[in-house]
């Protein structure tokens, strides 16, 4: 897996990675839900850029359209609907115990990354470099995703439509105002 990348590529890869991490950290530390949502959108945009750099252009477009577009708009819409702007509704961090657990998880992750970064990937895991890019030259960015989606994974794809139908029905039933409710 020892490939050589141009400096331009490497620089932008690290740039978007740092932007993603910084936005994610800012996201979990914001008190206002709206500010948090906007920082999360920033993280998703930089992840979309990384997807494009990793030869997954279609996924990058879907990331911007579905995640940064649709899902985050739904989140902001709910924040607006519930009118969470005033300070009494803005939640603080929890008590000492969960913060301690969270810090422990972070330390364990850093230790794991430090331990793994010294090891090398076993040779039997290595595959011909640029496997995906040859596929992409043959079928194009969308075609190389669409071919397995509509061949091997056709059943899963069709089941996804059932999942979406159930989700729509569930959201409508849960969000409906009962007749007895005031307002």
């Amino acid at each position, binding site marked *: 897996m020892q490939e050589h990348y141009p400096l331009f590529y490497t620089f932008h*890869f690290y740039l978007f990675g740092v932007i993603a991490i910084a936005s994610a950290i800012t996201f*979990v530390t914001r008190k206002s839900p709206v500010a948090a949502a906007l920082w999360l959108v920033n993280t998703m945009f930089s992840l979309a850029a990384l997807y494009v750099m990793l030869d997954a252009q279609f*996924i990058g477009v879907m990331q911007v359209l579905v995640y940064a577009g649709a*899902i985050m708009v739904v*989140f902001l819409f709910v*924040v607006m609907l519930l009118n969470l702007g005033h300070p009494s509704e803005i939640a603080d961090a929890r008590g000492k115990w969960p913060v301690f657990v969270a810090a422990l998880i972070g330390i364990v992750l850093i230790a794991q990354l430090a331990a793994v970064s010294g090891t090398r990937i076993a040779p039997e895991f290595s595959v011909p470099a640029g496997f995906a890019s040859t596929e992409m030259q043959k079928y194009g960015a969308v075609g190389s995703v669409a071919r*397995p989606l509509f061949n091997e994974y056709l059943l899963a794809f069709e089941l996804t439509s059932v999942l979406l139908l159930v989700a729509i029905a569930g959201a*409508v039933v849960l969000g409906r105002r009962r007749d007895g409710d005031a307002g």
Partner: protein
Amino acid sequence: MLAESLALSAVLFTIGVIGVLTRRNAIIIFMCVELMLNAVNLTFVAFSRYYGPAGQVFVVFVMTVAAAEAAVGLAIIISIFRHRQTVNLQNINLLRG
């Protein structure tokens, strides 16, 4: 760039876990779950570059599940807010025995 992608994905996932553990606002906790799903997607995409396009197909499925989860979860939050006038998880203990 596989190792860097996996490290970035691990860091983002951990930030999501820490957010779920330390925040009390239900909406922000949902957003942290979305961040964790995004981190997993980055792993799929990074591996799909070397092991073929099936990883990108899984990312499409993960996005669908995330959309469904967001719709149902936010409907539940709205429903809870109507009854309790709060989305602070400290005040929502209906299921506590």
